[in-house]
């Protein structure tokens, strides 16, 4: 018999992990929804953002400055990458962009290894302290990450819903030709969306950095799992990706009670396969009427 408190602890873990994953996945799904680009370099943007965060943190000693600095720097880097590497590929076979972003991911990963070296970097959490959660002492910072992730995603939602440029983005998602005909500068919308995606990846990297240590390979896990939730949530569907992130993380956390951690990871992929078989449009997409 599994103790009830253990299940509750794992539910908290699942929710917290789900929010962090949602922040990574929302950038990924935004880019796919607007540009039809499966961005294999998203995990590396997450990693590079974390590294830039460590540099700013080392210079200023302030975590929040590091967070903002990294977000701004990665937005610029994202925009440059989009203009230089992805814009020329617009309209080509989707495989081309997959290969291009995969190539970008290798370049960024090896650049980080060369620039920062193999030793993991440290970024100190701005909030310390624990609170008792049944038999564990739960770190307050993990809740802070979850809340900040929710706030950033909420901000994105409001921007998309009410902001002028958010409306441009939604219009471009729905019909890019018509949006262009209405005077919306579609290529620049693409650039801005990629910059926003990169900035969100950077924010997650800096927020998550204190809990794992920043290293060149940290993005890989997130890329894989973010893709799972983007598919389970419905490709390009922001709300669906967020729900799927929480759903998959909860599944994994709860599964770890009964099966080994290695098998618990498989649960996410089982969810992916079942989604593709049963409901390929995504679990959290309304059924078309």
């Amino acid at each position, binding site marked *: 018999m599994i103790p009830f408190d253990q299940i509750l602890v794992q539910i908290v873990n699942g929710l917290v992990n789900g929010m962090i994953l949602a922040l990574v996945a929302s950038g990924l799904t935004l880019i796919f929804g607007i540009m039809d680009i499966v961005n294999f370099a998203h995990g590396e943007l997450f990693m590079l953002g974390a590294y830039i965060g460590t540099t700013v943190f080392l210079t200023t000693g302030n975590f929040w400055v590091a967070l903002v600095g990294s977000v701004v720097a990665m937005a610029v880097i994202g925009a440059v990458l989009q203009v230089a590497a992805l814009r020329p590929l617009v309209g080509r076979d989707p495989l081309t962009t997959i290969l291009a972003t995969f190539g970008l991911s290798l370049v960024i990963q090896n650049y980080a290894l060369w620039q920062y070296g193999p030793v993991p970097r*440290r970024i100190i959490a701005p909030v310390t302290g624990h609170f008792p959660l049944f038999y564990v002492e739960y770190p307050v910072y993990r809740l802070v990450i979850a809340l900040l992730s929710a706030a950033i995603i909420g901000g994105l939602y409001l921007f998309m819903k009410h902001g002028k440029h958010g409306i441009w983005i939604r219009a471009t998602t729905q019909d890019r030709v018509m949006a262009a005909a209405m005077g919306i500068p579609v290529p620049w919308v693409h650039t801005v969306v990629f910059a926003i995606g990169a900035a969100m990846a950077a924010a997650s990297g800096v927020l998550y950095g204190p809990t794992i240590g920043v290293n060149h390979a940290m993005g890989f896990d997130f890329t894989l799992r973010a893709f799972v939730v983007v598919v389970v949530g419905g490709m390009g569907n922001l709300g669906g990706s967020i729900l799927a992130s929480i759903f998959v993380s909860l599944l994994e956390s709860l599964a770890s009670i009964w099966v080994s951690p290695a098998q618990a990871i498989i649960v996410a992929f089982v969810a992916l396969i079942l989604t593709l078989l049963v409901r390929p449009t995504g679990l959290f997409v309304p059924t078309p009427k």
Partner: protein
Amino acid sequence: MAERWQDEAWAKDMWWSGKTTRRRLLGLSATAAGALGASMLVPAPWRAAFGQAKPFKIGVLQPLTGTAAAGGKTALVGTQLATDRINRSGGINGRPVELVVADYESKPDVGRRKAEKLLVEDKVDIGEGGYLSNVCLACMPVFEEHKTIWMIGVCLDTTITTSKCSRYVFRPFDYAPSQAVAFAPYLVNKLAKKWHIVFLDYAWGQTTRDAYVEQIKKAGGEIVGTTGILLGAPADTVTSSVSNIRGNFDGVFAIMFGANAVTFTNAAYELGLFKKAKYAGDGAVAESTHLATLGQKIEGFTGVNRYIPVLTKPLDTPAHKKFFDEARVKLKQIDPSGPDPDRYVQSNFEAMNFLKLGIQKSGFRDREDSMKLIEALEGMEVKEGDDFPQGDKTLRKEDHQAFLRQFIFDIHNNKHRLLEVVAKDKTVVPPACTFAKA
């Protein structure tokens, strides 16, 4: 409206649309080819000193990209450090050493392919390196098939020199059964009686877990539970796994390395596990390269390792000081933070020196002489000195496993502090290898 989106008028000015003429392309290609050719004509620094002497080609397998790149890069520093030193002092039997480095991308299948390439295309005389145990296990049959010696530089999986041993493979450093024999009495008598083992769930982690389970029980301790963590597991999975660790134990023993060690220590510290239980483990958990990242979280950790970067007795020898200083200079070239050397640097450095001594003793010329070199290395005894700053070693004939002293240490003020030295003789375990008939 244009058929292709990027042919739209409004999209025309969004990217470069100049023309690359054939003449321009040919010109650029010729310049690039010329520059490449010129750089190839410049001899490697050691060539001038050795004239026409044919170099010994050593094929080095390391994970220089992928999840294990951090360890692979520091391991390579050890190999390069020894090679530079050998070449500076006149090479081996008047011949220089040339390294052919292959990156296996932290993947066993790539490792096997790269091992084949080193042996078939690059025609290396000897192999060196390793790091990930699953890759070592995958590559061992390739070296055996080509009757070429592989001096492993890092891999710690027990079976490499027991059930899967090979006449062509040598491990010139310790393995888990030796470490467990050396460390278990200390764990049980000075730290805790009841242990929960957290291990990396792959070849090395599993065999190391088995060794510690056996020795902790033998020393009078108890194993309350074990938890496997997948190699390269995401941090949230590790957090979930740590949250499931509960029960009546007073010590947590970690068998981890690299990023996994950092992630686990972070998660366990954050969830208050080290407030309930003592934290100990394999020395790889607290390599010098992790200390700055982990800060306070690794404070008080007790471990066992074949190498620790301290310069107090008995490691205050001129040989160790020299190795330490040279390694730091070389490590700074690959990492701006300038870390202290770790066991990966040390064991690869000494692996190359074993090869040097073996070649000198056997008169090895190329792969045809592999058996002569094997016989020279089997049972080789080496003494502490410039070639072996870690200490004396015996490379046992029966299984090609080395025995060496072990250092029990803790982390105090974010630095290694030596607690006890376990003599080489106290780490010996019986051989469990039967070589395949040639």
